């Protein structure tokens, strides 16, 4: 048989052809370009137009940035150095760096305090964001607000210590009574904490030393990007639990709680943030005597927190509505009470669904902290629009300063959004 076959064909290849690279046009960047950039004539034309547009933008900006001046004392000095050529005057960033970051009146010798608080914040926030880290790090997170308060505002250390004691006392009361009833434990805990703080109001002044270890810095002296970070971090972390409570309250079967939540959410969502800020800065000062007014920083934190918690509540309500009714019924049939059902079954799923929405609100909130510049707080935008552009040295510079503000906000906001995408992948339990 094999002989026959051997004679029926003239040539038989005994080995396979060695693999060779595909032709140039069908592989690598050329193929990618042909398929994606020049697939059709229309496609090709659009590509050329886009390339030209990119060229126009880059040819205007790249030399401007590369030719930038980093060492000068004023805008006119910059212009002298540039000598008619086009170039950015980044010297303003170097000259006013401290003011952009810390504001104009934070004592320069104390810059290490907010810097240290910032580093501690990264440590404190890590176990919350990445739950693979050891749980013991959460102790740092719990202590962080008090330490950061002490570092940034300074003054006697007893204030944050007694604030912490109040929380601890509240927790023990809660833990003691929660077995009897959640409501007794919850409200008993709050009452105990308030009582502790009220008492400590009398003790702290007697304990406070004349010269505290860290000199006291009033809220008015806070400013720059530090202020944006402080407002952003404080308000996001406060508005998340408040938002969850509001979302659950809105679904409550108790009419009083339900309508209180509905009215709060709808009212807050119905007014612009800027009006709330004006109420905080302007109106409230009418209702307090000048010497006993609530700190402006706290007033602003309350208003921004209220605002974003109303939005977060609606996002979480969407998450709750997306859960099948069976989940609620399953929790009931297991004999779980309301708090257990929410904690163990409903909220973990609802919050997972709500992540993109919550992150969206958080990013928006962080950027909205720049609105405080309108009520004469010197955040980074306030610093740029006020003192820096009003100085005789730097008046007339816009691009460099606002580009810098864009850049620092972009870094944080892009980071938040990347984290949320990672979190979604990490929590994905469905099969897609």
């Amino acid at each position: 048989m094999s002989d026959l076959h051997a004679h029926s064909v003239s040539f038989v290849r005994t080995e396979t052809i060695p693999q060779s690279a595909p032709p140039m046009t069908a592989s690598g960047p050329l193929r990618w370009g042909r398929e994606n950039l020049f697939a059709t004539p229309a496609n090709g034309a659009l590509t050329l137009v886009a390339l030209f547009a990119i060229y126009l933008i880059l040819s205007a900006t790249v030399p401007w940035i590369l030719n930038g001046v980093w060492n000068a004392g004023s805008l006119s000095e910059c212009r002298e150095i540039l000598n008619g050529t086009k170039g950015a005057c980044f010297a303003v960033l170097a000259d006013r760096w401290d003011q952009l970051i810390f504001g104009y009146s934070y004592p320069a010798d104390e810059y290490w305090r907010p810097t240290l608080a910032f580093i501690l914040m990264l440590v404190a926030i890590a176990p919350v964001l990445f739950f693979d880290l050891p749980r013991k790090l959460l102790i740092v997170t719990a202590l962080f607000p008090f330490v950061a308060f002490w570092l940034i505002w300074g003054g006697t250390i007893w204030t944050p210590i007694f604030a912490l004691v109040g929380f601890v006392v509240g927790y023990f009361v809660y833990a003691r009574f929660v077995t009897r009833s959640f409501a007794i434990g919850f409200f008993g805990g709050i009452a105990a904490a308030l009582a502790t703080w009220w008492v400590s109001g009398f003790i702290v002044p007697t304990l406070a030393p004349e010269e505290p270890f860290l000199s006291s810095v009033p809220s008015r002296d806070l400013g720059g990007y530090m202020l944006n970070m402080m407002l952003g971090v404080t308000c996001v972390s406060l508005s998340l639990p408040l938002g969850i409570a509001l979302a659950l309250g809105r679904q409550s079967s108790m009419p009083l709680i339900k309508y209180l939540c509905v009215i709060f959410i709808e009212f807050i969502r119905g007014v612009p943030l800027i009006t709330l800020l004006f109420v905080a800065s302007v109106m409230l000062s009418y209702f307090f005597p000048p010497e006993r007014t609530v700190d402006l920083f706290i007033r602003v934190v309350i208003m921004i927190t209220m605002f974003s918690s109303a939005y977060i509540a609606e996002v979480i309500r969407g998450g709750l509505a997306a859960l099948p009714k069976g989940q609620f019924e399953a929790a009931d049939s297991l004999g779980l009470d309301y708090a257990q059902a929410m904690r163990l079954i409903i909220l973990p799923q609802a919050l997972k669904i709500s992540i993109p929405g919550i992150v969206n609100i958080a990013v928006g909130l962080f950027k909205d902290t720049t609105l405080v510049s309108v009520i004469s707080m010197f955040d980074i935008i306030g610093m740029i629009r006020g003192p820096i552009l009003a100085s005789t040295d730097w008046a007339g510079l816009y691009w460099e300063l606002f580009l810098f503000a864009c850049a620092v906000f972009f870094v944080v906001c892009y980071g938040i959004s990347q984290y949320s995408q990672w979190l979604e992948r990490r929590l994905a339990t469905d099969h897609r």
Partner: protein
Amino acid sequence: MYRLRYPKVSDQPPINVADYQEEVTMNKSVLFGAMTVAALAAGAAAAGTLDDVKARGKLNCGVTTGLAGFAAPDANGEWKGFDVAVCRAVAAAVLGDATAVEFVPTTGKTRFTALASGEIDMLARNTTWTLSRDVDLKFDFVGVNYYDGQGFMVPKELGVSSAKDLDGATVCIQTGTTTELNLADFFRANNISYEPVPIETNAEGTQQYLAGACDTYTTDASGLASTRATFENPGDHTLLPEIISKEPLGPLVRHGDNEWGDIVRWTLNALITAEELGVSSANVTEMTTSTTNPEIARLLGSEGTLGEMLGLDADWAKRAIETQGNYGEIFAKNIGEDTPIGLARGLNAQWTDGGLLYSPPFR
């Protein structure tokens, strides 16, 4: 996937403070007035502002959030400027320490409430003295530290030396402001024509003017001067001598505490009188002992009891002049012709030099 777009918190229209500031103060005046009454009723029973300031050891002075030459913190965070000097002079007179001032930056929107609510003791924030602010908002303007008015800026190459030569010119003008009305009045009164180029903000006006979209740019003269100071070649542009509206800017205090108002008023007057009488920060110490002019002696406290009448010590005015200089020195240092702002004295010269500065006598 959950790619729904949720309503974004930042979806509100951007807000431009400068555009709203005049409007808001006017529209809200009734509300503010009503609330001020309540605040004052509560405040009237309390101790006087002077006692409060002395007890606190610091003067709370409202200033702008930053206006070149008038008030702005420098690179070291120290407030400097023409309005700032008034605050410091009052602090020097009352507390004996020109640095004992807490500067409270205010925006156009927050300035009046800050004063009415008692957050600040006085406001020195280039605020125009008008009837409604004085009467309806219940403030007392204690005087005028800068006579501003609407002016014109032209490129030098245009070869114009007077606003009356601007017949047929294109004028960059902010829409919906009093400057627009003032401009129309001025050109009609002088029977010449112009072509308006409407703009929205000062930044836009600057751009349009530099791009040659208009022959001349008009707004408050001090604003024109500080805008010009930011130009690449400020020397190529000139401000015309005509001022076509009245904008008297001055410090103000709350209604109802006349003793405090007197102190601020006479501190300002002391600075002005000092220039008129030739007393400066350089010679004030020497003058105190050696002067033969009785008014200088009364001003500096070496004669008479003027300080006592105000509830201060005899050296009050001397300290203010010593630390800040007289009016002319303050002007020259912050906004005068040798500074980048480069304002001429003009209306702000002493009455003896043909200006409007005229302090009542120290007697």
